[in-house]
């Protein structure tokens, strides 16, 4: 406060650039992604080719959809840790039921537990006010238990991956992964819902100030129940996509995606305390994590060193991003 009193000057170029970025937080995030890709290309010249991009997209898409579930639930101050279990259940049920059932029937059976778990989550969080973390952790334990019991009844019948899911999960059309046929509409829908619909607006409002939303006539339980059902449905669909990609139904298929899905949403700028964030950032967050995994896979170093590096890069990326968009 010892500087002399000056009227604010026209901002310098650097200042203007910063403002520009701060107003469009996606741009710096994309820049960070590009930097990571460039590092990859430098470490392994030639790796960044059409095929690699398609593969990266294939793995980023399921992660991005699950991260979409997290984004939406996090906007309300919640979190959905049951997405991994829900996705695994749908995938496992699909792969085992398709053996003896009509595909449509198998699909319905596969989505049924998703809806059910979503409903239970929603009622628990929305009506009984159980903390979302506990609620979804609890239902995911319960779901896992049921899945294991179920698994015993179908060991003898084996499993099969339906061709359609195979096509969706691993196929390419003109070099583009077919998964995009699913992902683009889903992403557009999520972005539209968050920005341009009443429901999306309520998600933000409820997460920001539940009492204010209540005074405006919003019934919390309605919003929350709908939200968790949608989240579960998306997770179920992700499970189907993922089984088409991995082609090996196991009881822990999608579990490894849960923590990264939370991380992708947070890196993309969504606050876990609610009220703040968006889906475009999340998508790039998912891409960043996927590229990072590749980067570490091809590095020649002991596993311990890899993990240390991974941790530091995640921290660095997020810190750099915040520095850029910060307007203080």
């Amino acid at each position: 406060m010892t500087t002399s009193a000056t009227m604010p000057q026209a901002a310098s170029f650097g200042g203007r650039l910063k403002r520009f970025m701060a107003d469009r937080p996606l741009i710096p995030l994309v820049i960070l992604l590009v930097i990571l890709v460039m590092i990859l290309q430098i470490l392994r010249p030639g790796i960044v080719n059409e095929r690699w991009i398609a593969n990266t997209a294939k793995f980023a898409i399921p992660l991005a959809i699950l991260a979409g579930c997290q984004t939406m639930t996090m906007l309300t101050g919640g979190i959905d840790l049951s997405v991994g279990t829900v996705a695994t259940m749908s995938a496992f049920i699909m792969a085992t039921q398709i053996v003896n059932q009509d595909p449509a029937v198998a699909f319905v059976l596969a989505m049924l537990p998703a809806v059910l778990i979503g409903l239970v989550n929603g009622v628990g969080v929305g009506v009984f006010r159980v903390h979302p973390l506990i609620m979804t952790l609890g239902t995911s334990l319960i779901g896992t238990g049921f899945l294991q019991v179920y698994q015993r009844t179908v060991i003898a019948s084996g499993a099969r991956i339906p061709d359609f899911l195979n096509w969706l999960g691993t196929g390419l059309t003109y070099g583009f992964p077919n998964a995009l046929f699913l992902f683009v509409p889903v992403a557009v829908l999520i972005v539209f819902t968050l920005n341009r619909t009443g429901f999306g607006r309520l998600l933000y409002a409820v997460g920001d100030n539940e009492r204010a939303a209540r005074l405006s006539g919003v019934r919390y339980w309605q919003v929350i129940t709908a939200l968790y059902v949608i989240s579960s449905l998306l997770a179920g669909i992700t499970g189907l996509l993922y089984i088409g990609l991995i082609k090996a139904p196991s009881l822990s298929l999608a579990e490894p995606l849960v923590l990264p899905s939370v991380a992708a949403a947070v890196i993309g700028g969504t606050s876990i305390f609610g009220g703040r964030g968006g889906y475009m950032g999340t998508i790039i967050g998912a891409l960043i994590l996927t590229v990072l995994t590749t980067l570490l896979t091809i590095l020649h170093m002991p596993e311990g060193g890899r993990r240390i590096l991974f941790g530091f890069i995640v921290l660095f990326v997020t810190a750099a991003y915040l520095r850029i968009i910060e307007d203080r």
Partner: protein
Amino acid sequence: MITNPLLDAMGVAKNYGAVAALRNASLSVLPGEVHALMGANGAGKSTLVKILTGAIRSDAGHVLIRGEARDVRSPAAARRAGLLPVYQEPALIPDLDVLSNLRLTGTPVEPFRAWVRELGIPNLDIRETARHIPLAVLRVLDLARALAVEPDVLLLDEMTAALPANLAEKVLEVVRRQGDSGRSVIFISHRFVEISALCDRATVLRDGVTVGVVDIEPGVEEKIVEMMLGARIEKTSVAAARMANETPAAKDSHPRLAVRNLQLGTKLHDVSFDLANGEVAGVVALEGQGQDELFAALAGSIRPAGGTIAVDGAPIKFSHPSDAIRAGIAYVPGDRTEALAMQRSVRENIALPFSAAPRKWGPIRVRRERMVVSSAIARLQIDTRAQGEVQRLSGGNQQKVTIARWIAADARTILCFDPTRGIDVGTKQEIYKLLRELAGLGKSVLFYTSELEEVQRVCDRVIVIFGGRVVDTFPVELADEPALMRAAYGLPRGAREDVGILADIRPASDTETAP
């Protein structure tokens, strides 16, 4: 005699991105002086206080304390320098009890207790968690906590805005005595009565610039208003507006809102009254007489234990605010943090009720919404330079957003709980006018205010609540300030005696409302 200023700030500037909160503010406070800091909503008063007390850093400017340049980097440093603020938002830690809050700040307990008693709260439970203490009391505790450490300069940001008349009076008394005992006070308020009763000089801010320093003397108000509002002055006589608008409302057979024998725990007993179409009814009460609960019950926020509420003659049960809203009843709470999603934009906050019902969850009709919202914004003169997030608006502008919401939603009945809390004179006039206009359009307004003079300006009728009962109802013509004060303290008015019985009599409000 020339005394050196105790606190001297010059050329202070602060930018929030593109918004210049302060551009060139200065302030000089003498020892023993009560110094008013005035300005319209968003002029930068709170920002200046925050800078002086180290809560935020300025972009430019010097601050001298007792003639020495001091770099106050944090509220803790400000404390050490003898500067103690009471900010516009309560600073007690919500989850700690009062005692722990004192211990946290190293405040001596006994002086604190003494101040609390002096400020008009005789039986404070010091073990109560701050979260469970009403806002008005919290503000007083905040003040007592500051007083207890005997600061050299006390900075009070709209200290009285959220206080009912009785508490506000005590605060003014105490502040006056601070000045007399040689300590300085920087006093922010939008109420001229308080300024003229209390202050020695006033510094006026407009758009982040200090536009003048005046001595407080009779008749200076006009000058201050002129300095504050600049080109924005617009004098309207509310009374005139009232006359002009008063087309005799068609008297329906049913009142808009009929409350009968409302019962709520220990807070409300047998409350009955009517609210007619086209009427503004004022509620007058001291702190904690049950007015909060009455409004919350009418808004569907809490469920009454007994009694009926009828809207347009049809009895209605409210189990959720959305029921009340469906019946056309909107509630503007006094505490804006209760009403606003602080991280969302002004537009979203105003448009929030539009999406509440599940059948409105679909795509938003953006153009229509923008139109409705901007007309509400214009109507309340909301300063929307920082509209991206409501939390960046100044206190008064936030308050306006809470009202604008229901103007946009076109609610038929508005329950306003102290809506002019912390709103500048210019806008206050606007709000009075607005409420009268609404009444003219046949809408009804229930209006609680902590500033008694507002009652005369806006209301048709006064409902007095004391100890959870309606103790009196009378037309505004009889409501001069002394009468209101007496009524608020539960004293029977003139010849209209018996408090208990009065509560049950339905006064012929129709005749009384007619001016």
